[in-house]
């Protein structure tokens, strides 16, 4: 359109100079042609973009603003791990080394699956009615496409030493603590007071009356309350059911119990980050809140066979 308006006066067609009415008509025709071309270009670009998004396994460009979403640091850790893996693969690591990587302790699903999603608990007003050491977590996993195959799922919960333990720790030798952490099975009787068990239950049937609910224990883990760490619980069975029957997604029930309740130094569950504390701001909570990590394999992204 701009090139048409910049034409020199002498080069204009006689018909346009003789009849202003016709010139206007011609201008508008050219302009409409120009805009039609622009529309066509935009359409082509749109189709190219659609095609590219499709090859990424997306139907359309997500209309979101990343600055509005808090991304859990664990997802960045996984991303860095994947980048490292891709680099190693590009450098053609030997088959033996690849096997040892796959059987390593560090999240085997993360190594085998080509897609990882993170989900946070959908907060509800009912949350505050749960006892302090119990919590019902609800996750909306409806965004996982039906074509993706579940490889594994973990519920990650953060914990840190409560103030009562921190005082005791001041009198402890740090080396002793690290030894205990490594040799998890070698606990002395005196140390049992620092252990807390975390149970995760699959809510098979929610509570309608007082006692008609069905909760199935799917994983359990014992944590040392003196540590500042994260516990990973395997929740794959629940995810398998939720993805095949989304209407049965009633969430997880997480329970925190001191192993030796009578003599335990920690009688409450405040050291396990099940819910946000009153003083905690959004940023601090987004890094510490429980996280559901789902590993899936997207067949659409499967590697093509080599020639």
């Amino acid at each position, binding site marked *: 359109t701009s090139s048409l308006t910049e034409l020199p006066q002498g080069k204009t067609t006689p018909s346009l100079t003789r009849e202003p009415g016709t010139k206007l008509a011609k201008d508008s025709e050219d302009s409409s042609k120009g805009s039609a071309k622009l529309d066509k270009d935009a359409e082509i670009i749109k189709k190219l*973009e659609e095609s590219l998004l499709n090859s*990424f*396994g*997306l139907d*359309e*460009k*997500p*209309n*979101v*603003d*990343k600055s*509005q*979403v808090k*991304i*859990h640091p664990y*997802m*960045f850790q*996984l*991303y860095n791990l*994947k*980048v490292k893996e*891709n680099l190693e*693969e*590009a450098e053609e690591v030997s088959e033996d080394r690849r096997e040892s990587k796959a059987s390593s302790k560090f999240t085997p699903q993360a190594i085998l699956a*080509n*897609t*990882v*999603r*993170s*989900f946070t608990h959908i907060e509800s007003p009912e949350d505050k009615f749960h006892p302090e050491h119990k919590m019902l977590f609800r996750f*909306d996993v*409806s*965004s996982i496409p039906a074509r993706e195959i579940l490889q594994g799922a973990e519920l990650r919960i953060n914990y840190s030493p409560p103030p009562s333990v921190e005082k005791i720790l001041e009198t402890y030798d740090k080396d002793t603590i690290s030894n205990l952490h490594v040799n998890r099975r070698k606990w002395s009787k005196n140390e049992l007071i620092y252990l807390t068990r975390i149970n995760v239950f699959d809510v098979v049937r929610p509570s309608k009356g007082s006692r008609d609910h069905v909760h199935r224990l799917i994983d359990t883990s014992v944590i040392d309350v003196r540590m500042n760490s994260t516990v990973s619980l395997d929740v794959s069975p629940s995810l398998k059911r939720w993805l095949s029957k989304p209407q049965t997604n009633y969430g997880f029930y997480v329970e925190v119990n001191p192993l030796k309740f009578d003599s335990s130094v920690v009688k409450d569950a405040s050291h396990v980050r099940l819910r946000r504390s009153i003083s905690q701001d959004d940023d601090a909570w987004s890094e510490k809140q429980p996280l559901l990590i789902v590993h899936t394999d*997207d067949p659409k*992204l*499967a*590697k*093509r066979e080599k*020639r």
Partner: protein
Amino acid sequence: NTKNSVFKRPHCRRYNMYVDFRKVDWDTWIVAPPGYDAFFCQGECPYPLAKHMNATNHAVIQNIIHSKNPARVPAPCCVPIKHSAISMLYLDRDKKVVLKTYQDMIVESCGC
């Protein structure tokens, strides 16, 4: 535009091509990486084919036939023969954080 660029070099080889997600306004939903080196292949596969051109047996045969009868059989093409993957951390339309690994996104080497 191949006329004014370095692509005049006859032999098949790999060239730089950086895909910048910001330039296509994809940085609103892609968290990492900001872009990546995709590379591309360009160049001729002249007769006889040198070893560094990573030619397949078929390319060698086609090249011989082409040298005898260029009008009927074209010269072999310069194409990517080895790729590698990239991982992308992004937000889907439900604002859920997704980490995906896409295979065959980077050209590692070219050949005839």
